């Protein structure tokens, strides 16, 4: 089987599984949609964290902002937001189906725009920071965002907002949201697959490998960094909008800006699967989701300890991740062409240096 056909079959298989799974296991639609959410977290984190080498702990800001913007748009289109949030869910607005669907569509668009705008503003704050300062700075911004939204009464404050109730059957609602999650994940994957093959992909890789050199080669690094950040924000904000509708109720600390849960999970999933690879985040997210569900079910109370230990072990012993390991093991299968003459020359020089060494020692 040629690699091309194999990957074609793989994509077809994933596509079939994505469409077939909720029909085959209707009780698990929410769980399956969560899996796509996790994959989206990992894929969007990997754009900046893996491919560009800027380890952010604050991507959750886009998620929460997208969730809030989407919810506020959905409500604000047909109702006064201040009144709605002041009532703390006591007002139940009955939306008609077209109202609900337009609200959802416009909400997701607004969320995406907000994600990009926040990424540009946020990028101006944090992109001067390098290395660990970047991680701490983004962590600070994420924690601050959650705390500040919690004090803002117009958007519901710490009490949160309930989202518009879907006017149809619950079964269709979960299928609709599943379809949204799945289509978004598939679209993001396809987009990133294309993006990483372009000049832009090479540029952000160059920034990861050596930012000073990249700048010296004439890349306008700040522009590339902000663009990559904005792409991440764009998709993560849409993810947030969908997630808000899935849970039906949002509040700032646990649902919208969960820095120590989803915010850390996205990093962990990418590290588990393999940073800076296309499939790594997908594999990492899938494995992580399974581990998480199993520990949540069977090790209740100990699940956080298991997760924390998983982070430590993963970071210390297995930082390259599953795909990173596989890529080192079988480089040819990952399209890393070993330049034969150059490699031979390298080997030659290596051998030469070996022969030189004893002489140096003798001298």
């Amino acid at each position, binding site marked *: 089987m040629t690699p091309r056909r194999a990957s074609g079959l793989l994509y077809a298989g994933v596509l079939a599984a994505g469409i077939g799974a909720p029909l085959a296991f209707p009780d698990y639609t929410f769980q399956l949609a969560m899996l796509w959410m996790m994959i989206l977290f990992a894929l969007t984190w990997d754009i900046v964290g893996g491919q560009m080498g800027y*380890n952010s*702990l604050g991507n959750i800001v886009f998620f929460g902002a997208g969730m809030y913007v989407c919810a506020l748009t959905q409500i604000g289109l047909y109702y006064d937001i201040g009144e709605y949030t002041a009532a703390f869910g006591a007002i139940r607005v009955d939306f008609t189906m077209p109202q609900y669907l337009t609200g959802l569509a416009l909400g997701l668009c607004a969320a995406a725009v907000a994600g990009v705008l926040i990424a540009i503003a946020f990028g101006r*704050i*944090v992109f*001067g*920071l390098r*290395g*660990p*300062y970047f*991680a*701490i*700075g983004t*962590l*600070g*911004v994420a*924690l*601050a965002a959650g*705390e*500040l939204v*919690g*004090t803002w009464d117009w958007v519901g404050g*710490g009490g949160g907002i309930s989202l518009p109730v879907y006017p149809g059957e619950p079964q269709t609602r979960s299928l609709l949201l599943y379809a949204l999650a799945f289509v978004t994940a598939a679209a993001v994957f396809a987009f990133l697959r294309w993006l990483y093959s372009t000049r832009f992909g090479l540029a952000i890789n160059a920034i990861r490998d050596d930012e000073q050199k990249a*700048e010296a080669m004439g890349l*306008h690094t700040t522009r590339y960094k902000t663009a990559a950040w904005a792409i991440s924000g764009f998709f993560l904000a849409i993810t947030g909008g969908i997630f808000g509708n899935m849970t039906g109720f949002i509040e700032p600390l646990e649902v919208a800006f969960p820095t*120590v849960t989803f915010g*850390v999970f996205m*990093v962990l999933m990418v*590290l588990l699967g393999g940073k800076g690879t296309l499939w790594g985040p997908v594999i990492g997210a899938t494995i992580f989701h399974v581990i998480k569900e199993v520990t949540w079910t069977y090790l209740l*109370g*100990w699940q*956080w*300890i298991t*997760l*924390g*230990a*998983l*982070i*430590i072990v993963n*970071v*210390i012993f297995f*930082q390259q991740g599953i795909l990173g390991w596989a890529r080192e093991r079988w480089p040819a299968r990952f399209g890393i062409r070993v330049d034969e003459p150059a490699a031979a020359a390298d080997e030659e020089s290596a051998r030469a240096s070996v022969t030189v060494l004893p002489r140096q020692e003798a001298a």
Partner: protein
Amino acid sequence: MLDNLMLLKDSPVLNVQLLLDRLFIGATFALAAYGLALVWGVMNVKNLAQGDFVILGGYIAVVVGDAGYNPIFALPVAVVVMFAYGWIVYRVIVSRVVERDLFTSLLATFGLAIVMAQGMNLAFGSDVRTADPGLDTRMFFGGLVTVAEIKMLALALAAVLAGIVVAFMRKSRMGQAIRATAQDARAARVMGIDTERVYAFTFALNSAICGAAGVLISMIWVIQPFFGITHSIRSFVIVTAAGLGNLPGVIVAGFGLGFAEQYAGFLLGAEFQQATVVGLLVLILVWRQVQQAGRRQAVQ
């Protein structure tokens, strides 16, 4: 918010109360931040579990208090136990990330922070606890300002602890070795210093300092298993504001953060207290950037 501001203006004594309340807590912030700066400066590891070390120290005081002793006696216990704990953590986790890039240590200690917070939650429950040393409260200004004696004692103990640590770093062989390693680890190794041992000792010392700070915090304030992350962020704010290896700066920033938090909490409402801590971190980082941007000459 304006009402509270007017209240402060009308009764200046209230300011004294607010300032005093945080003076004592700021001292413990400064202790924990000093430990963070120590580890950061010597081995270039950013310990995100710093706050959880503090909370763990606090629970030692609670346990000692529950056993029927005065929690003040938990101070030496916490120092010894946390020193040993820090040594073990170094051997098991931190020694493997010292040489790696900075994000690795950040993430590994973050994992540790999650494990510790949840472990304490399982062991002690998620209730807010405090250790009662059974001392009186003193009144000043005809009862307008109250200060618990334990707070004054805690401030004195914090000062003594800081003095001991500084004297230790200046005078002892190990202190000299730590400073030498911080300056240049490779040169220190060449000079025959066992840097691995120095690292282990530094991390254990940091853990002991945090433990002591935790004992003080549990007596003058409250502890809860998940308060650790806020304490960690506080330490980062203080160290980032003060700079590394700047002990007076750390003390000033520690008190400053305490005051800022207190005033924000009083003026804007208690829910802003946490937001102030993280907000200040972001502000300080932005301010540092603006400062540096003036010096940077980028090719555009």
